[in-house]
């Protein structure tokens, strides 16, 4: 039932930094002292079809809070909001294609009235050379709920591993590594949404 034609997408180009990564617009750290939840660091690299780093990508993430509730009016679930957690992150990439976030592990959000989804973080990729942004999800490799997640089941089995962030411990720090491969061997599964 569309009435108006959509406005088309164009690449973010190479020079988005002043506009989208100005000091009060970049959001590598999603947590405050009062934020509820298990602290995690997400790290990864964005790589192209030659396995070369993409130094001019922009990564945005969107996630529920530790209780599995989105800070959004459409989420009318029973789980509480966390006033110290917005759930949005934005990171540029460095010369080696690296990006990072400090956040909390999200809780499981609803899929339908009965079923929950496995904990996941929505990941959006913008870059020079991407005429449309790409959307994917980060899942946690050590999460048993992955086996039943309705979205992961849509992904061909041989490609599911591209959506699983690998857990590493660095002292007390829990790091989940999530590389984003735009093209070629190990190409990340992206969603048509």
């Amino acid at each position, binding site marked *: 039932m569309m009435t108006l*034609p959509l406005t088309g997408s*164009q690449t973010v180009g190479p020079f*988005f930094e*002043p506009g989208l990564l100005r000091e009060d617009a970049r959001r590598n750290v999603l947590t405050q002292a009062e934020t509820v939840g298990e602290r995690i660091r997400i790290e990864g690299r964005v790589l192209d*079809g030659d396995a070369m780093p993409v130094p001019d990508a922009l990564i945005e993430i969107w996630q529920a809070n530790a209780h599995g509730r989105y800070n959004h009016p459409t989420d009318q679930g029973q789980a509480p909001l966390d006033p110290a957690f917005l759930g949005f992150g934005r990171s540029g990439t460095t010369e080696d294609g690296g990006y990072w976030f400090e956040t909390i592990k999200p809780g499981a959000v609803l899929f339908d009235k009965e079923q929950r989804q496995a904990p996941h973080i929505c990941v959006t990729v913008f870059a020079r050379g991407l005429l449309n942004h790409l959307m994917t999800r980060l899942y946690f490799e050590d999460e048993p709920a992955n086996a039943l997640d309705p979205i992961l089941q849509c992904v061909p089995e041989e490609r599911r591993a591209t959506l699983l962030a690998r857990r590493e411990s660095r002292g007390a720090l829990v790091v989940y590594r999530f590389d984003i491969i735009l093209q070629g061997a190990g190409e990340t599964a992206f969603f048509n949404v």
Partner: protein
Amino acid sequence: MKQITIGDIVRGDQEVFPPYLYEAYQSTRRRAPTLPLIEVPLTLSELTGPGPAISAITAEDADLTRNAGTGGEAIGQRIIVTGRILDDRGNAVPNTLLEIWQANAAGRYLHKRDQWPGPLDPNFLGMGRCLTDEHGVYRFLTIRPGAYPWKNHPNAWRPAHIHFSVFGPSMLSRLVTQMYFPDDSLHAIDPIMSSIPTEAARKRLIAVYDHDVTEPEWALGYRWDIVLRGPYATPFELPQGEEAQQ
């Protein structure tokens, strides 16, 4: 220019959205995914999004002619760029964040990787942002950007453009695009603009000169409306199966 469209991965509406692989735009060649995008049902994760929360906490900064903090004013033709943000059913999208960035009047970006010998303007950062009002209207004051030379092919120049980033209400409505100016000879030979599949959809990226927006002895006026996807029904009201994909 001959339309060179390779690959069949197209996000959403094929009349509107470019393919990921568009050979004439060289940067797509090693960055476009080659495997099909995965079809998935929409869930709460896609029907929510950061737009409402981030828009509520972001301060406006909509005068690009004076926001460099130098006390001086940017050089160039002063322009007003205004329009409405709508969803595809024609509803206004109120209180949503727009972020823009652009080259200066000489076509130079303030960025360490832009090193062509166009002059920088110390009074111009080329970035701004604003929120739509309750009727979905946004408004920026800026200067008209110059054409920008790039290395995509010999003697390549991008038409004057302003980059727009818009959130809207959900993940589905997120859009990054570019606004172009009317009567620019570079449109037809620009691979990025040409990546939009249809003439009608390309035309919708071009602002309209509007003399009613123009202010006497102050600034020329341009009008450009943006139409975003959604919002759609709440997830529990969505029909099952393919219709839920919209």
